């Protein structure tokens, strides 16, 4: 709790100064990034009294460009990580200190209310990720806290949004090392699992994994209830005819987003969103064709009789 209060205080201070990414403007002179943004780092070894150069652990290298574009770019490293990290060599026990979780800041705050973090958490707790790995499966497993950028909010290109979203899943599901961190078992690649899916590449480019692998919630921007693979959508017709699972939530979201960018009447009318596949429910299609051709046939018969009678 003490830690949390300190963190909050830092954040408040930080916001009150209206900071915007100034911490990372010059990585080479940043206390942490001068080492953690480089492949190698140098330090003075007091014991040997010599300058030493070593390789940086690749998992601890921060991509400063992504960091500056991420949502958290206006927090300094020590806003979240312990201030004691400013000394080197870092104290070993620092690794065991608990970190603040996403919900420590994002839950119960009115300015984040519209993103419904509590509901996201509720949905997440129903997911296979939580059921299998519990609290070890943190938000950060998918949403990299250093680099996260809300692509669905910033991009108007569906392909871009899909790519960004799918990268999150694939960062583990297509990476044996990261996958084993969570599951402890080796898995065949995503491509083999989806062998049954026609036009696999096209699907992966245009459809988010979560369209088939989560329970759809229209009011959430993204449903976090990731289902087990047995419960994933496998029937083509679910998306291609019978249901608009596809895009239902993205449609809502994109629509609101475009209006936020251009709230004028003309902007609203030029909104190009469209609910894919929702209009082609097979039974309705058959009924409508029957009605349509029935109408035409009725008119044709009636017209024929009118012409015959007139000729008489």
């Amino acid at each position: 709790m003490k830690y949390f209060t300190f963190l909050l205080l830092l954040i408040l201070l930080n916001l009150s100064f209206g900071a915007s990414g100034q911490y990372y403007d010059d990585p080479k002179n940043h206390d942490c990034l001068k080492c953690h943004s480089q492949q190698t780092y140098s330090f003075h070894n007091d014991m040997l009294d010599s300058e030493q150069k070593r390789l940086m652990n690749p998992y601890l290298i921060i991509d400063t460009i992504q960091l500056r574009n991420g949502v958290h770019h206006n927090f300094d490293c020590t806003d979240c990580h312990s201030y004691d990290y400013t000394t080197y060599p870092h104290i070993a026990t620092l690794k065991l200190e608990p970190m603040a979780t996403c919900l420590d800041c994002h839950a119960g705050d009115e300015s984040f209310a519209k993103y419904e973090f509590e509901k996201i958490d509720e949905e997440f707790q129903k997911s296979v990720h939580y059921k299998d790995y519990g609290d070890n499966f943190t938000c950060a497993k998918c949403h990299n806290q250093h680099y996260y950028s809300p692509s669905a909010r910033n991009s108007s290109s569906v392909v871009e949004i899909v790519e960004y979203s799918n990268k999150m899943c694939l960062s583990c599901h297509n990476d044996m090392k990261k996958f084993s961190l969570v599951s402890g078992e080796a898995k065949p690649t995503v491509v083999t699992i989806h062998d049954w899916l026609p036009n696999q590449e096209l699907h992966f480019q245009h459809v988010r994994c979560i369209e088939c692998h989560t329970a759809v919630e229209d009011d959430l921007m993204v449903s976090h209830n990731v289902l087990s693979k047995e419960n994933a959508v496998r029937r083509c017709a679910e998306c291609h005819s019978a249901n608009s699972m596809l895009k239902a939530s993205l449609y809502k979201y994109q629509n609101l987003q475009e209006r936020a960018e251009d709230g004028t009447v003309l902007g609203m009318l030029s909104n190009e969103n469209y609910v894919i596949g929702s209009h082609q429910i097979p039974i309705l299609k058959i009924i409508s064709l029957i009605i349509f051709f029935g109408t035409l046939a009725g008119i044709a018969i009636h017209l024929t009789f009118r012409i015959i009678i007139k000729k008489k």
Partner: protein
Amino acid sequence: MSSENKIYFYPLWLRIWHGINALGIILLIITGISMNSGFEQSVISFKLIITVHNYAGVIVMLNYFLYLFGNLFTSNKKFYIVKPKNFLKRPMKQAYYYAWGMFHGMKSPYPLSEKRKFNPLQKYTYIAVMYFVVPLVIITGIGLMFPELIFNKIYNISGVLITAVTHSAMGFFISIFLIIHLYIASIGKSPLDNFRSIFNGWHHV
């Protein structure tokens, strides 16, 4: 207003409404069908089709208020009053006339006059279309334009889906109405007579 077998059935406001509505609905049907069929590679781009559909939709909606207020504030509303007596018999009789009677020398059972602009079948259809189907297509259209207004779910079915399906189903009924409307309009003094009437306002009886 009437003179020698002619009645001034269609005042100017009504003709303006009808004209805008006709063009708007035709545009909506064409763009609506092309969206449903999902041709991405057509002469007009898919995105433009959606934009045209949005514009036409809003124009038809605003125009609908002209129809509503026109009927509210002029005497035109009296033509829509339904008599409870023989509620079903009257339209049936008209249907029988269209299907059988008119080919066997029967006189129109409900000849049009100063007091009667629509035959019963026509009246019922217009009421259903103008006060049920069209408002529903407008409301669902607004829902699709402002999806935050749509309820999230009804029994596990997405609200966006229900709204979209209702929208296209109602659009479909309007298309069927249009086909029948155009055909029945050709049953007049001459096949083109009624089409002339909606331009000049005078109906031949």
